């Protein structure tokens, strides 16, 4: 049955088609091909095997419905943070990045329909991955005589709709409070941080167990589990009970989703149009200077290039998200270092090296590979060597500055371990930058997210070098803490791989015209 052109259903079809073409199945660039679809279908079928194994364990261990509801509820709550991250990204895309809204809003379609369908599109794109992961459990549970688990379908869809409404309201509120430009940056940062929330939560246990007051903290956690927010009767687990087919929680969740959807569409669709108008004009927002035109010419070419690169980095919302995400991942390490007491120095060394290497890789790609005006540089009389050095410095310095303080702290606490970590961090940062400089390929800045797929050779070398420097840090610090021959062998192997990757990149380096 074909929907009438211009109807909400027809528009939803258009929205889903665009989401399908832009999905990760096709690498985000093209319509998914037969092979990639086949791979995903096979992965989905394999998920049924995993679901069977897990459900079998739950049945064997006699996990009752209450505990199962808590488990599923916990999984759904964690999933909701990822959904929020996806939904925020999708809202930013809908408002600021996709070019089709001008066309839609200039058509005779009511803006209310456009907004309602776009919101459904955000919900659908947020739900898709989680339906892919969770629906095998519903099917296997049905096979095992638990048809109630089929409620995973409506529960995940309802949760995604609630989260999509929250994300859209948050984005529109930010547009009103901060303006379109800042909202774009902030929403992307929030999306990144929301995605990392699971990591931070997973670290709470580690931090607590390393704390001298661990016993007290565990006692408090037990109390929470029995009486507080995490008690079995807590409303926190309602989504889990809904997903397992309990009628009242399920109806409640679906009703909540519908109410959130209707309210969001009804109350805010005009504001949505306003948000779009702001987004359309955001590039032209001019802040009038107080003292007229001001220049800040520099006498050194090196400084000029570094300043330009840092400006471009600071004004790129994707990059800011990336840097902040690294800082989020750095946070537990910083807490461990700064808190005092027993410190897992090998893990800290490896963590700092890995994070710095990964951050530098991203920055180097933007600064070196994604140069917006390569012809301007090549048509200038500036020495290519100076340009390359300045770009390398611009890409490596942020990571080194970010870890400077924790590194200094570590050096003060444990001088030899700190100096060894400083060595591996510097090696990791320089290696990542040099690999991109030598084997990176020119690319468009907008392809930042897909950079790994565009240059497989560079990606593999970056990954190798990142892991090697991380392993080297772990092994060296373990070695001075008294670890045996395994640490020496591991250090030698890691150093050989790190230097080997660097040598290979140098041999394969691209020659400038």
């Amino acid at each position, binding site marked *: 049955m074909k929907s009438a052109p211009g109807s909400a259903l027809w528009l939803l079809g258009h929205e889903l088609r665009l989401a399908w073409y832009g999905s990760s199945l096709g690498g985000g660039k093209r319509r998914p091909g037969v092979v990639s679809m086949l791979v995903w279908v096979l992965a989905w079928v394999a998920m049924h095997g995993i679901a069977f194994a897990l459900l079998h364990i739950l049945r064997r261990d006699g996990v009752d419905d209450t505990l199962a509801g808590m488990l599923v509820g916990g999984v759904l709550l964690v999933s909701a943070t990822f959904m929020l991250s996806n939904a925020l990204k999708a809202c930013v895309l809908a408002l600021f990045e996709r070019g089709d809204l001008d066309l839609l809003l200039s058509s005779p379609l009511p803006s209310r329909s456009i907004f309602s369908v776009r919101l459904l599109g955000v919900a659908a794109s947020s739900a898709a991955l989680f339906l892919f992961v969770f629906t095998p459990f519903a099917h296997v549970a049905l096979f095992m005589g638990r048809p109630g688990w089929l409620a995973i379908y409506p529960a995940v869809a309802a949760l995604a709709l609630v989260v999509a409404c929250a994300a859209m309201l948050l984005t529109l509120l930010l547009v009103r409070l901060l303006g379109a430009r800042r909202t774009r940056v902030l929403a992307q940062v929030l999306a990144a941080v929301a995605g990392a929330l699971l990591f931070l939560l997973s670290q709470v246990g580690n931090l607590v167990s390393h704390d001298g007051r661990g016993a007290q903290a565990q006692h408090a956690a037990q109390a929470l589990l029995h009486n507080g927010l995490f008690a079995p009767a807590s409303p926190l687990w309602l989504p889990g009970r809904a997903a397992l087919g309990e009628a009242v929680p399920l109806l409640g969740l679906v009703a909540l989703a519908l109410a959130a959807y209707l309210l969001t569409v009804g109350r805010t669709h005009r504001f949505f149009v306003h948000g779009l108008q702001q987004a359309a004009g955001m590039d032209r927002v001019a802040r009038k200077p107080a003292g*007229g035109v001001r220049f800040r*010419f520099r006498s050194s070419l090196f400084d000029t290039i570094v300043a*330009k690169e840092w400006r471009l980095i600071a004004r790129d919302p994707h990059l800011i998200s990336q840097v902040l995400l690294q800082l989020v991942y750095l946070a537990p390490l910083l807490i461990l270092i700064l808190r005092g007491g027993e410190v897992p120095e090998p893990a800290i060394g490896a963590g700092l090296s890995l994070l710095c290497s990964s951050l530098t890789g991203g920055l180097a790609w933007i600064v070196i590979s994604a140069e917006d005006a390569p012809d301007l540089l090549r048509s200038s*009389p500036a020495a290519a060597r100076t340009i390359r050095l300045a770009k390398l410095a611009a890409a490596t310095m942020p990571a080194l500055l970010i870890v400077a303080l924790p590194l200094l702290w570590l050096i003060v606490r444990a001088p030899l371990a700190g100096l060894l970590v400083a060595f591996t961090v510097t090696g990791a940062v320089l290696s990542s930058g040099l690999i991109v400089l030598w084997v990176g390929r020119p690319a468009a800045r907008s392809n930042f997210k897909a950079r790994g797929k565009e240059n497989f050779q560079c990606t593999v070398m970056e990954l190798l070098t990142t892991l090697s420097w991380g392993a080297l840090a772990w092994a060296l610090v373990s070695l001075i803490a008294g670890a045996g021959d395994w640490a020496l062998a591991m250090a030698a192997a890691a150093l050989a791989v790190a230097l080997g990757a660097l040598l290979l990149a140098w041999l394969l380096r691209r020659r400038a015209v």
Partner: protein
Amino acid sequence: MTNATPALQLRALRKHFGRPAVDGLDLTVQRGELYALLGPNGAGKTTTLRMVTGLLAPDEGQVEVLGVDLARDPAAAKRHMAYLPDDPMLYGKLKPTEYLEFVAGLWGLRPEEAEPRGRRLLDWLDLSKHAHELTEGFSRGMKQKLALAGALIHEPQLLILDEPLTGLDAAAARQVKDLLLSHVAGGGTVILTTHILEVAERLAQRIGIIRQGRLIAEGTLAELRERTLGGSLEDVFLQLTEQA
């Protein structure tokens, strides 16, 4: 380098991309000239300009800019030259002031000489009131004017422009044309390609017509008319490119 040294001299320049794109091109442009290089699509105009500016290495031949061999001393040759391609070489996330600071840095200008020039160019091209906006929001004409400001900030003796008027409105096109004439009046040299033959007819002192990578005709408009049945530059251009 004397005043008699040509601003640009190409000798037997060749470039192949599977087929010859530029095929033994000889060309001389004198100082103080506004020279228009015309030709149908795919004739080799842009390839020629990219070789002149050092963006493409020629397969054979020699490029001399103000008497300096580009292959031997590219930095010295580029120091007195500026290139403005069809698609302006800008950074969307930079403001016009920051863009000019960057370009001035690339050409090694001292801050005290760059600042008044930058201010004057922004005023001249009506960009001062947009000096604190990111260029990603600029119209095509504003982008082209900013790129032109960047090309002029180091006061090049040789200005090379590839389709500089594409997409500009009448007012912006007039500003750019005035600027080019003023550059030539001040002793500078301009080489431009254009599909708008009226622009070449009005501005250029000499015109070169290129087809399949070869110069098939060259001279003033009057000289080109003499070689053909006359008429407008459009008539002359069509006759020459169809004859060849």
